[in-house]
């Protein structure tokens, strides 16, 4: 069992709780027991004190002997519990008298010395009974101090050692310890057996999770199971995670399928062109045409691969806030100029705009604007201008690309999806890869910006990139 095993933790906790319970019970019962035992002992010594008082009528010179005899007798007769090995100590004296009326006869002189010492505090108290526990040798002694009711000046102190009580409680402790150890042992074993059974839902859940693989990731696996309430949150989050993963994997699969499709097509075209030329003798002109066409297809593939790499790169790099200040105007005019030069037109126009700078990555922003304008030129009506304007508020900076083309609403939401094309047949001829806006979207995300496309018939299409400052 590992330390962080739930099984072990539960078993240990239950055992500790049990241990505490036993300890509290032990402590409580021990205290109660001791009190009862001490009570009965007190009664014995109070009884003896009473007897001593009854003897006080005797002449003084006989008293000591008589009391000693009586105590001895009562030790044997009346109080069986008091063994002879446990001598009853007593001292009887009269206030302001140096000599004692009677004192217990013991072999041990320290007792008598000690009993003498006892006179002082006893005298001071007004209580009829005076109980104290004092240490003498190895035993604890318990005394009853008794002021005689008949002879006002006479004090009687009777003491007995506590060995019996100590012994009894010791036995109880031993018994309890053995019982407790056995109980804890049993608890440990029983919880050890029961806990794994209680934990079976966790096992079942993990078995179900084991079945999850790349090809089988639907959260349905966990649907049919009876899950204890405590595991609901866990299982729910696993389900959520699974469905998120599933979606991501489906997207990824779709993307690689699309990418391979997009690459296979120009490859197939180029191959077929070359094979058609090769299959039989052709004129020089035909060969030249075939080579030119194949080169065209190869550059299409090159462009596609370049864009795929760009997208993969954007997917992989971590999102970090750019710190460089970029002049928006400068980038936009660069892009516009390049596209105009490339297409040999002046279709791309920039409206007067204030100086705006924002934090970002220059090459990425360049690419984003390029893709948006390129897209507008590719798919917009031929020859129509694309106008760029900006709008700045306190919180936002918007760059608006306007062209006169119209895109119907059903396509608008999909425009930024990878490989999405409104009109496939046309895009092949225009050479679009279907990745331009997807890349733009990705770059916008990295710049904490978003791209919105709106289109109104007769007015045209606006692509708005909004940067939040």
């Amino acid at each position, binding site marked *: 069992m590992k330390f962080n095993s739930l099984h072990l933790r539960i078993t240990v906790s239950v055992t500790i709780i049990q241990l505490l319970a036993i300890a509290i019970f032990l402590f409580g019962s021990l205290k109660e027991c001791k009190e009862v035992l001490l009570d009965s002992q007190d009664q014995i010594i109070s009884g003896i004190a009473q007897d001593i008082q009854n003897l006080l009528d005797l002449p003084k010179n006989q008293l000591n002997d008589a009391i000693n005899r009586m105590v001895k007798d009562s030790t044997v007769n009346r109080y069986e519990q008091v063994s002879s090995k446990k001598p009853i100590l007593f001292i009887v004296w009269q206030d302001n008298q140096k000599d004692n009326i009677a004192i217990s006869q013991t072999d041990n002189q320290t007792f008598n010395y000690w009993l003498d010492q006892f006179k002082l505090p006893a005298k001071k108290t007004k209580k009829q009974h005076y109980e104290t526990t004092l240490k003498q040798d190895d035993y604890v002694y318990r005394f009853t101090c008794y002021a005689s009711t008949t002879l006002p000046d006479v004090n009687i102190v009777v003491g007995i050692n506590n060995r019996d009580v100590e012994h009894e409680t010791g036995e109880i402790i031993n018994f309890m310890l053995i019982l407790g150890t056995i109980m804890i042992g049993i608890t440990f074993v029983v919880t050890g057996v029961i806990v794994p059974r209680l934990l079976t839902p966790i096992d079942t859940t993990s078995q179900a999770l084991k079945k999850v693989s790349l090809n089988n990731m639907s959260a349905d696996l966990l649907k049919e199971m009876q899950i204890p309430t405590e595991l609901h949150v866990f299982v729910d989050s696993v389900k959520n995670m699974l469905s998120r993963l599933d979606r991501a994997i489906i997207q990824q699969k779709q993307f690689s*399928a699309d990418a391979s499709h997009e690459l296979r097509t120009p490859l*197939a*075209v180029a191959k*077929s062109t070359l*094979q058609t030329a090769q299959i039989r003798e052709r004129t020089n002109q035909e060969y030249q045409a075939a080579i030119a066409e194949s080169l065209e297809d190869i550059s299409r593939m090159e462009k596609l691969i370049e864009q795929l790499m760009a997208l993969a790169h954007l997917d992989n790099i971590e999102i970090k806030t750019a710190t460089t200040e970029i002049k928006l105007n400068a980038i936009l005019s660069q892009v516009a100029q390049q596209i105009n030069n490339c297409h040999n037109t002046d279709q791309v126009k920039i409206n007067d705009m204030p100086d705006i700078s924002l934090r970002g990555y220059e090459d990425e922003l360049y690419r984003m604007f390029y893709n948006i304008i390129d897209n507008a030129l590719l798919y917009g009506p031929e020859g129509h201008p694309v106008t760029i304007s900006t709008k700045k508020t306190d919180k936002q900076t918007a760059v608006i690309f306007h062209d006169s083309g119209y895109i119907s609403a059903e396509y608008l939401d999909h425009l930024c999806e990878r490989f999405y094309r409104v*009109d496939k*047949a046309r895009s092949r*001829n225009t050479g679009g890869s279907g990745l331009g806006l997807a890349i733009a979207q990705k770059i916008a995300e990295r710049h904490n910006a978003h791209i919105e496309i709106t289109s109104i018939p007769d007015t045209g299409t606006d692509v708005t990139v909004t940067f939040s400052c």
Partner: protein
Amino acid sequence: MRVLIVEDEIKLARNIAKVLTEEAGYAVDVSNDGTEGKFLATSNPYDLLILDIMLPGCDGLEILKSVRNLKKTTAILLLTARDSRDDIVNGLDLGCDDYLTKPFDMLELLARCRALIRRSYAQPYPLINMGDICIDTNKQQVKFQNHLIDLSAMEYRLLEYLAHKPNQIISKSEIEEHLYDFGAEIFSNVVEVYVSTIRKKFNAVTDLKIIKTMRNRGYMLELYQDEI
């Protein structure tokens, strides 16, 4: 044999059409659009359809389904960039006869087309033997006994078509439909002219009248009585 290619990559469709015409002597129609392709495929008696799957307008599988829904047994080859097992299984299960993924080898495509057409006329063996006449459909050669008969492309197409359906009367219009593509201008007596030139070329080596004319009904390539 008449073939329809539905493929939105204009250059690719053009290349395939060129090779099928030049190397196999087929009459080839090309459509770059799914909707048009579907119309052509369902309204003309093609011997083979070559369909791309991802097409503008109407996808290749849709065309495949509508052709099969009309109970047409035309051989269909799917030529697509989709190469996953599921796509292939799905295509074949929908009723296509063959599946080729892009990029493909032109010679392989050609061989597959020949095989599909042979099979559709229940003539799986590439050599058609009819007594003394032997037609090698791979080399497009016709022999009578050991004499090589030199036929033009159209003459060969006509003879091969008749040989695929021996001892059957084949109408003039059926011949025209299978030998000419959609754009070809057909003169009213063109079949008669080709039949007579074929006969002439055979008459150089034999006295047999190779192709029988069934008046007002059509033509028939007949096996010799003793060969049946």
